[in-house]
C-alpha cells in the first residue's frame, strides 16, 4: 500500500449529500478482475453525457479541478455498496484525501486499505473547507497526517481525529494481512478453543 504522510494539493468541492458508490463507480465497471484503470470512469454518469462526451458542468471536468487530489463532499459520502472499486477509482484518478461530515462505514474502511485518507469534520468546518475548495486551482490545501491537521489556502488550520492504528498503517504503508499474520498464534489458540466450545461451526 502507498504511504500517506503529507499532501498539498487542489481540493474540489462536491457539496451533494449521500453520494453513493453507484455514483462513484457505476456497476458496469465492476466487471473487471483488476484493481487498476478505473479512474477513467470515476463518477461516470455525472461526468459524461450518454454520448460519451464530457459534461462541462461537472466539477472534475473543469480545468481548475482536473488535477485535484482532495475532495470536499456532502455528508454520508460513499453510502451504498461494499465495492472497493470506489476507492480504487478515486485513487486511480489521483484522489488521496476526502473530507466530509460523515462517511458510510464500509467505504470509510476501504479507503484506509488503499492509501486514501478520509477525514471527518463538523458540518461547520466542512463548510469552511468547501469555501476554500471553491477558490479553484490556486488555492491549495495541505494535509499533514503526522500532526493530524488540514491547512487551508488562507493558512487556517484545523485538527482532525484519527484512529491510532489506522494512522500508523497509513504513515508506514503497512499491509494488514502481514500485520495479522504476525499474530497467527492467537488465531491458532482461538480456533482450538472454539472448536471445543462450538464444534458445530
Amino acid at each position, binding site marked *: 500500500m502507498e504511504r500517506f504522510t503529507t499532501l498539498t494539493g487542489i481540493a474540489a468541492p462536491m*457539496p*451533494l*449529500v*449521500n453520494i*453513493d458508490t*453507484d*455514483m462513484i463507480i*457505476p*456497476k*458496469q465497471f*465492476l*466487471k*473487471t*478482475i*483488476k*484493481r487498476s484503470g478505473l479512474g477513467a470512469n470515476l463518477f461516470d*454518469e455525472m461526468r459524461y453525457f*450518454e454520448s460519451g462526451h464530457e459534461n462541462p458542468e461537472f466539477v472534475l471536468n473543469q480545468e481548475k479541478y482536473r488535477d485535484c487530489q482532495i475532495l470536499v463532499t*456532502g*455528508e*454520508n459520502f460513499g*453510502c*451504498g*455498496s*461494499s*465495492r*472497493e472499486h470506489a*476507492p480504487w477509482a478515486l485513487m486511480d484518478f489521483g484522489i488521496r484525501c476526502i473530507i466530509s461530515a*460523515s*462517511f*458510510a*462505514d*464500509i467505504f470509510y*474502511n*476501504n479507503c484506509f*486499505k*488503499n492509501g486514501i485518507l478520509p477525514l471527518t469534520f463538523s*458540518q461547520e468546518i466542512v463548510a469552511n473547507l468547501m469555501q476554500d475548495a471553491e477558490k479553484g486551482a490556486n488555492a491549495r490545501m495541505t494535509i499533514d497526517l503526522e500532526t493530524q491537521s488540514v491547512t487551508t489556502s488562507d493558512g487556517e488550520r484545523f485538527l482532525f481525529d484519527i*484512529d*491510532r*492504528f489506522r494512522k500508523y498503517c497509513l504513515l508506514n504503508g503497512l499491509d*494488514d*494481512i502481514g*500485520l*495479522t*499474520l504476525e*499474530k*497467527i498464534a*492467537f*488465531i491458532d*489458540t*482461538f*480456533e482450538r478453543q*472454539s472448536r471445543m466450545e*462450538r*464444534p*458445530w*461451526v
Partner: protein
Amino acid sequence: MPPKTLYDKIWNAHVAHEAVDGTCLLYIDRHLVHEVTSPQAFEGLRIAGRSIRSPDKTIAVPDHNVPTTEGREDPQNMTEDSAIQVAALDKNAREFGIHYYPVTDIRQGIVHIVGPEQGWTLPGMTVVCGDSHTATHGAFGSLAHGIGTSEVEHVLATQTLIQKKSKNMKVEITGKLAPGVTAKDITLSVIQRTGTAGGTGHVIEYCGEAIRDLSMEGRMTVCNMAIEGGARAGLIAPDQKTFAYIKGRPHAPKGAQWEAALAWWKTLYSDEDAIWDKVITMSADDIAPVVTWGTSPEDVLPITDVVPSPHDFEGGKVGAVERSLEYMGLSPGTKLSDIKIDTIFIGSCTNGRIEDLRAAADILRGKKIQSGLRAIVVPGSGLVREQAEHEGLAEIFRQAGFEWRLAGCSMCLAMNPDQLRPGERCAATSNRNFEGRQGRGGRTHLMSPAMAAAAAITGRLTDVREMI
C-alpha cells in the same frame, strides 16, 4: 456480570486478539464469496503465495452477473467481461477447494439467500461477504456485515478481520402490523425515520412484537436493509422460529451437536437492562404500505401521500431532493398513486424468497398485468424457484403476464442483461433506488412484493390494501 446486548455477546465470543487501543482480530465463522468482489482478492493471495486458512468455512456462488434466462451456462450468452468474472470464480473456487454452487447447480442463487437456505448461517456466528447486504444474515442472530475486497483477501488468508467494536442501537417496533403491511414497509419506514446515515457506526438490533411476529423470510427482509440505514449490521435475537427454520438444513448441526448448539443459541438475547447508545421506537400502527419517490432509500412515504417539495427539507438535502425529483421526472404534489410505471421487478436478496413470491402471487392470482408492461420475477435461488413451481406460483405469474426467470441478482443492480432504459420507471422489490442502479437513467420505486404486484395490475403505484 454487567448486562450485555446480543451484539456484545456475539462479539465477545469471537475476539481472537485485542490490542491496547481496542483494535481486535475478530474470528470469522462463515465467509461468503461472489464473482464481482473476489477476483482481486484471490489474485492477491496468489501473488503473495498465500493459501486460504479455512476453505471449509468459505462458500462461493456466482449471482451478480449471471443471466437469468435459459442457456446461461453457455458463456456465449454472457457479455465477455461477465463471462470472465464467472470463469474466474469457477477457477478460484476449484483451485482453492472452497464450497461452490455453480450456475448449473439447483442450489445456486443470490449469495444471501443461499447461505441461510443451506444452513451455513447459524445464530451467534460471524458472517462476512464482499457485499453490503450481508446484513441479511443478521435475521438469525448472527453478526453479519459487508466487507471490501482487501478485507475479503484478509479473511481468506487469516479467517479474521481487523475490527473495532461498533455502538449498540435498538430499533423496537411495537404492536401488530395491519393487513397489507409487510416487513419491507417496516424496514423502509425505519430508514425514512433515521435517514441513510442514522445507523452509521452502529449495529442495530430489531425487536418488539411486530418483529417477533415476522417469519424468518420477513426478518431477513428487515435486516437486509439495515445497511441502507447506514448500520454496520442488523440483528434479531434467535427464537423458536429461527431454530425451526434451521433444523434439518444441509449444513445445520445434527444430533448431539444440535443439542449443544441449541443450548448456546438460547443464551443469545440482549439482557433486560442492557445499555444502548441509541434507541428508536416505532408503533406498527404508524406503518403503512410505503414506496420510495426519490433516489435515496430514505426517500420513503406512505402510498397515500404525494411527491414532496425540496422546500420540505433542510440543509444539503434540499439540493439532493431537487436533483432527485428531476432525475425521477416527478413534480411536487403529484399523488404517488398517480405515478405510472413501465416495468415490475420482483426479486433480489431483499424480497426473492418463497414468502415474497407467495405474497405477490396472492395479489396476482387470476389477474392480468396492464398490457404493455414488462414484468419479471427472479427467484432468489434455484430451490426457491423449484418450490414456487411446486406450489403453482410460477403458473400464476406466467398467466398474469410475468416472465419467470432463473435465480440471480438480475435487475436489482442490472449487471446482467436485465436493465432499465433511460427514463423507464420500475416498481422494484429490491433495496436501492440510486441513480442508474437499475440501468442508466432508469427510475426505481422501492416497495414490497405485494405492492409491486398491485402496481403490475393497475400500471401505476397502487395501494395494495385496495386489493385485499
